């Protein structure tokens, strides 16, 4: 049994074998694997006794449940109006240059994926970005580069 299958079994045992557990199970897998591959979705469907189409239908609806491969760290920069007014464009540009990718892409070493997100709920302290589940409000170009450098060092 693969590592992912073990994880799925654990999650299903924890949350219960029913449809209501689907979101927590999908979220648990994404948390550790960063992506829901076709095989993973089929395994989840089998474990919860649902049709694979229904599991894919749910997974593909949600922005944070990625069905395409992502980097080990996912950067999400808020692009909604107040963060826009506070200069999120410069930050995106700086990180694009630093990581040598465009928004939506993943670096060659698979360390980072750069994405934008709709309102992250820090409008009074914009611009703001999420790296994985960690939040960084009131960033500027300099700070954002330092934060990503730190993550880069910590990621083997």
């Amino acid at each position, binding site marked *: 049994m693969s590592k992912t299958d073990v994880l799925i079994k654990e999650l299903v045992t924890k949350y219960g074998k029913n449809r209501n557990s689907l979101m927590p199970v999908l979220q648990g897998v994404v948390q550790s694997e960063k992506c829901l591959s076709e095989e993973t979705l089929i395994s989840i469907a089998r474990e919860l006794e649902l049709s694979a189409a229904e599991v894919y239908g749910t997974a593909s609806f949600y922005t944070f449940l990625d069905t395409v491969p992502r980097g080990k760290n996912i950067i999400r920069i808020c692009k909604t109006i*107040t963060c826009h007014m506070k200069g999120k464009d410069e930050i995106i540009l700086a990180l694009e240059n630093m990581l040598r990718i465009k928004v939506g892409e993943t670096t060659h070493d698979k360390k980072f994926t750069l994405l934008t997100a709709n309102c992250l709920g820090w409008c*009074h302290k914009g611009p703001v970005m999420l790296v994985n589940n960690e939040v960084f409000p009131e960033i500027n170009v300099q700070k954002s580069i330092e934060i990503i450098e730190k993550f880069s060092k910590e990621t083997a």
Partner: protein
Amino acid sequence: MENKTLKKIDLIFAGYTSTKYKVLEKTFQKTPDEIINEVLDSGLKGRGGAGFPTGLKWKFTKNQESDVKYVVCNADEGEPGTFKDREILERVPRKVFSGMAICGRAIGAKEGYLYLRGEYTYLVPSLLKEIEIFEEYSKQYNYGFKIFIRLGSGAYICGEESALFESMEGKRGEPRNKPPYPTVSGYNSKPTVINNVETFATVQVICKIGAQEYKKLGTTDSRGSKLFSVSGDTPIAGIHELELGMPLQEFVDEFGDGDTKAVQVGGASGHCVPRKQFNQTVIGFEGIPTGGSMMVFNSSRSMYNVLHDYLEFFTEESCGQCTPCRVGCQQLLKGIEAVKRGERPPSYLEDLKRLAQTMKIAAKCGLGQSVANPFNSIIDNFREEIIY
């Protein structure tokens, strides 16, 4: 109309009492009907934005015959410009859990769920700690109420109550047809009370100080105080608790930077109020209601960019289930881009307004229905900025 002036209040974030869950102890001595009457009497209306009377919602759910009922706290705070719920859950989660437990007692529910948006996952550890404390008390006093956390995964539409239930049930976050309303058929098709984070926190406040005292704040239509998330061109961005029913002019005098051109009241799905209407606009259910989002724009901002940003937001966040919203959002966005580029005449804006009006009637849920609010208010008041 009653004349209210801007008044700062400190109820929601006021410090905890030294005894944990003291308000619960006091409130649980009352019967469910007494609790519901207290909430009804306070005049509290839902703080998420729609403004349905909270006590009534509870009463309807209580009156449903069912062995299982649920309390759900909507913490899927996704409206652009709103961040008060995050702050409440960070600073005073105990008040929210108290409000949920009080609701559970009133309607006869044994389980409560906090549906937290995925963007706030970092709050989970501290919330779980507070749930542990709650459960200690729950056991000690035999409350028989349990609280669970469920996470969202980055879908704005899941803040719509029936989409939220779908998501909790492991489905795509697509809104259901109404009726039946959640009070009859909500989570797992059981009677459910679903309230906003701030509403539950306010219930705790009401049970603490009493409906009579709470009612002294605000106006006949808008009782009490409410948290405002202030952002944009303001020197004092942040969360401010204010009495309801103040004129927008006073708000701008207090929070503006002296050059305020417009205020977007109620987030992307709310109304844009231009400077010339500040004086006659009241913030409350008798005027422009708000879930708390107040985005302030000064004269250096292009309202075309603001509207463009909102329409991009709706286009991305539309669940795609009903055609008026899915296609309508896209066409409104394409439409203003075409007018800006000169490919369409300015009169095309009238056609677009009619489309927005059609969405208001034909869209299945609040998302598509409310796109007309920002669209029409910005087009009507800043027409030249959209065209040139």
